[in-house]
């Protein structure tokens, strides 16, 4: 059984004194996998270094199985780690790389190699133990690195963007391998990543931005209900519609969107519309005077069409209707994901509507500064 707790972790570099981590508190339960999701420079790798003992926190405690290990050196914390680069020992064979952990903990060469052989099999590299590490492909090297970390048989595994240097295909196979390892060994895992797909491997994800945890939850829950504009921006794919909440409705230049009775937010609020929760239809002239995204729709003009990964995304611009005289609060453009088969052209006038199958989500505040519970309608 292994449980990892981070209580009020703070850290700043001596050079400039700027805080890289501030009051980070997280718990990873036995056998659980928690992903730290954050952009570059958010402090996620620093958090992993502080947890591992390779860096000292300026505040807070690290506990493993309720034992305070903050003041213990890295090798005595009951943790192991795997990094973005495999860091294989080139003077050792593949088998002896994996045997490194057991050897440093006092196992004989024969015992250590027996353990190493088991873990090489677990990562599907049986038969390659006698090779030099330089003879392996990038994916095989990361498999060896994973086997080597697991062979230490420590309860907690720290992963620092372990697969981000691999191409998409290899990354996919490593994700499958990680699922197999979890099923076989149930290690407690803390993984940092900037990749939403990779974070999806975890039971829960914590969003870390500028050294602070902004939200913790399952990845689908984060994606459906980001707690702030900051989180939405990190997850990507959201259009931000600034406006205000009055009388249970979100009001903006795009019209009004009904919010349910339980809405508690008042005043400034940002409506978060995902690209795929809007659809473009052929214009209906008789609705021209009823321009409301939350109602029957809004006339827009396509300004450009591009790709976001495998999907087509159209950028559309609102066409102000003079008689409505709404204050334009920006943005006047949003991105809409096109369903397969739909083709639109720049300059085309279309009707923009919300897809009723998707829940609507809004967060207090006009920008990322404010953190609060979101307001949701379904």
């Amino acid at each position, binding site marked *: 059984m292994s449980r990892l707790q981070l209580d009020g972790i703070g850290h700043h570099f001596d050079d400039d004194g700027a805080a890289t981590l501030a009051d980070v508190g997280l718990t990873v339960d036995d056998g659980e996998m928690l992903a730290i999701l954050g952009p570059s420079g958010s402090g996620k790798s620093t958090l992993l270094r502080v947890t591992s003992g*390779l860096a000292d926190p300026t505040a807070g405690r690290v506990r493993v199985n309720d034992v305070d290990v903050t003041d213990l050196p890295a*090798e005595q914390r009951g943790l*192991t*780690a795997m990094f973005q680069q495999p860091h294989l020992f080139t003077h050792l064979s593949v088998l002896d790389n994996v045997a*490194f*952990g057991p050897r*440093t*903990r006092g196992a004989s060469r024969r015992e250590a190699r027996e353990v190493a052989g088991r873990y090489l099999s677990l990562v599907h590299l049986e038969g390659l133990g006698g090779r030099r590490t330089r003879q392996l492909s990038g994916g095989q090297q990361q498999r060896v690195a994973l086997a080597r*970390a697991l062979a230490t048989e*420590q309860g907690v595994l720290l992963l620092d963007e372990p697969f981000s240097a691999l191409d998409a295909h290899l990354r996919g196979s490593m994700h499958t391998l990680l699922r197999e390892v979890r099923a076989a060994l149930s290690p407690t895992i803390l993984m940092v990543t900037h990749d939403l797909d990779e974070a999806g491997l975890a039971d829960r994800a914590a969003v870390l931005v500028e050294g602070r945890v902004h939200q913790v939850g399952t990845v689908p829950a984060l994606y459906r209900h980001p707690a702030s504009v900051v989180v939405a921006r990190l997850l990507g794919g959201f259009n931000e519609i600034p406006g205000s909440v009055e009388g249970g409705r979100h009001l903006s230049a795009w019209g009004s969107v009904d919010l349910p009775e339980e809405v508690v937010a008042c005043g400034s609020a940002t409506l978060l519309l995902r690209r795929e929760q809007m659809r473009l239809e052929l214009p209906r002239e008789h609705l021209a005077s009823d321009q409301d995204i939350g109602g029957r729709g809004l006339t827009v003009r396509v300004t450009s069409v591009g790709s976001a990964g495998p999907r087509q995304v159209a950028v559309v611009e609102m066409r102000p209707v003079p008689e409505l005289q709404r204050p334009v609060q920006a943005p006047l453009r949003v991105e809409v994901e096109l369903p397969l088969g739909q083709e639109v052209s720049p300059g085309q006038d279309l009707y923009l509507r919300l897809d009723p199958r998707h829940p609507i989500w809004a967060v207090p505040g006009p920008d990322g500064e404010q953190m609060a519970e979101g307001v949701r309608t379904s």
Partner: protein
Amino acid sequence: MLPQQWGVMGWSSALESGVTVAAARSLVLGLLVAAVATPLGAMAGRALGWREVRRPQATAAILLAPVVLPPFAVSMGLDVVILRVGVPDLMAVLLVLSVFALPYTTYTMRAAYRGIDEGLEEQARMLGASPRQARRRATLPAVRAGLLVSAGLAFLVGWSDYVVTLLVGGGQLVTVPILLGSTAAGTGREATVAVLSLVTVAPPMLVLLVARAWKGVRS
């Protein structure tokens, strides 16, 4: 240019002049300089290669100084300091020669450390190794070729030195180069000088061959 007659007169003469003892002294001196300058150079090379010092360029310039400055000036300067402290002659020669060898070992090891993965030690720590174990089992094996070359260069500094051994050693320490110098100063002993010259160049040739063989094995 070519010898008019062949014989072992030169060898006999060299043996009579004490080349065996001189070679033994040179050998011990070279090994001691290698033993002192190689680990120091490894530490300095690591600090410079991995930028673990605050002002790496200034530090590198100071370490390079013994090679850049005239050896006579450096030797005399250090000799004065060493005489005041009262260090014995052999120890004094060893210390000064180590200072001269340090730039070679440092720069070799700086290149060696720059050529390896800086994350190896931290990775070893995360696999259960103490800082000392991490150095011994992860980093040092990765720079062993650099260590061998450094040791070879430091040995050659000790083996082939003339100026320091003469000035700091006060003429008491007769090594092969000293013997060669004194023999060559006279006339009519060309055969002896030739033998002593051969003995002097033997270790550098050996080091070169070992380095080539090592490179061949590595590749």
